[in-house]
């Protein structure tokens, strides 16, 4: 456990010891501010469209999820790909550490970044709450959902970072995977109802919405936790597979 914390600490220090974290957070907050205050509507499903025009927090969180599909892969891309490139992976994996500890430590470090980024968005919804609609339910639900989706993105990003030594490849693959897994619920109706239903069950966005609505369903929680655990397990396995190449 101490190993994992040492690893996570090193990742957080690496993020905030270089401009990467600050730039990513600045861009994120700026874009979020623009789309939020200019009330650029998010591509919501039809039934949500009218709701979106009200003074609600929903678009804020929807936009956060959307921006995270780009920002978080940029954060996770270096986690293992950089180690591979520098050759330090060999050092790391010949320390008395298991692959699982390495992967979990790295993931927690990235989660630290997510925590900071999410916390810094707090002024936006607080401002909205101060101006009216004082229901804190959607606020809590929204953040909870955003953090879960973010954690899932980081886990997927960590997985793609374990596959390659090229950060840009890890980045683009993660964006593609995250976007696909998120918006798979927007398949055209032509694919047929069973396919649509199946797609919804797999969609990050679908599960996020149900959490953001303020209904905490264990199924949604279990879904995101499974994605995180699954992606981390695959990443650990991918690290281990080096042994037999």
């Amino acid at each position, binding site marked *: 456990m101490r190993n994992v914390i040492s690893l996570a600490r090193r990742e957080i220090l*690496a993020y905030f010891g*270089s401009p990467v974290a600050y730039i990513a957070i600045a861009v994120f907050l700026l874009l979020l501010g623009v789309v939020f205050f200019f009330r650029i509507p998010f591509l919501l499903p039809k039934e949500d469209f009218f709701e979106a025009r009200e003074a609600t927090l929903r678009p804020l969180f929807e936009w956060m999820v959307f921006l995270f599909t780009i920002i978080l892969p940029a954060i996770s891309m270096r986690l293992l790909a950089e180690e591979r490139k520098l050759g*330090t992976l060999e050092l790391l994996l010949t*320390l*008395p550490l298991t692959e699982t500890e390495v992967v979990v430590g790295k993931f927690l470090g990235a989660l630290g970044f997510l925590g900071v980024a999410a916390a810094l968005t707090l002024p936006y919804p607080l401002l909205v709450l101060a101006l009216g609609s004082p229901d804190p339910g959607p606020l809590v639900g929204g953040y909870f959902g955003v953090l879960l989706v973010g954690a899932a993105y980081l886990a997927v990003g960590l997985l793609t970072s374990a596959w390659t030594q090229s950060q840009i490849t890890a980045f683009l693959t993660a964006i593609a995977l995250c976007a696909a897994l998120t918006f798979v619920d927007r398949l055209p109706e032509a694919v047929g109802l069973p396919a649509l239903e199946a797609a919804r069950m797999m969609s990050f966005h679908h599960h996020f919405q149900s959490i953001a609505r303020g209904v905490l369903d264990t199924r949604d929680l279990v879904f995101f936790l499974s994605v995180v655990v699954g992606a981390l397990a695959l990443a650990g396995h991918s690290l281990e597979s080096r042994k037999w190449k």
Partner: protein
Amino acid sequence: MIEIRNLVKDYGPIRALNGVSFTVEKGEVVGFLGPNGAGKTTCMKILTGFIAASSGTVTVAGMDVVTHGLEVRRRIGYLPENAPLYTDMTPREYLSFLGSIRGISHQELPDRIQRVALRVGIVPVMDQEIGTLSKGYRQRVGLAQAMIHDPDILVLDEPTSGLDPNQIVEIREVIRDLGQDRTVILSTHNLPEVTATCNRIVLIHKGQVRADGTPDAITARHGGGNTYRLEIQVPEGSPDPRLALGSHPEVAEVTPLEVPGATGRVFRVAAKGEEDLRPSLFRWSVEAGWTLLESRRERLDLEAIFQRLTLS
């Protein structure tokens, strides 16, 4: 301390190691020698648990590197080839990060870091970013990292590659110093390094051990030792000494050598056996009526042995 048995490693269709076996005793400094691509690095990667062998076993202090990986890795300090380091950290941060992963307590850590820094000579650069350090200093930071937990065994993959001659001498001194109280395996294709730092050599070529022993034992065993150089003054009118030498029962072959400026005629004589032929060659010359000006048993030096064993 380390026992390597029948190690085989295939990278796809390429066999990098083909039945490597040797053991290393506690306190030995072993030079792992061989041309590039001989399998040195592969062997070290298996020893440190970074990759798995296709077959064969490696045990460290009686523990298998695969089934007891964590315990084995606790006892080993490893400097991979090219000393990979986190360039964004300072040596102090780096060593404290690795020290904490190695399970050194926070109270003990600063003291421990100071001690290894002194030993490898990186005290002046401890708070400078690693990315800005010279190759020599980086190599030392890598060494410091390998010994932060005071391991029984140090595995160093080409610790002096890419260094200038002064740095090489300095790093060698550090290694020799370290080797006094622990087991060291270092790989190199640099021969002076081996004679300067190691008390044992394992030479591998094409994934197989070609020679194993102290530098002296290897020179004796593979350095020929059974050819002689004779310079003889032959009186006018006597028969060709080649024939007479060739009729000696222990002589396998006689080759005349063209040596400019030699007083007598010079021959290289190859013996059949290993025993020293000089006394008998001396008597043989006297009986034939020659004057023996020089008789020298020829040995190849390590460099020539290296070439002989790896160029075939």
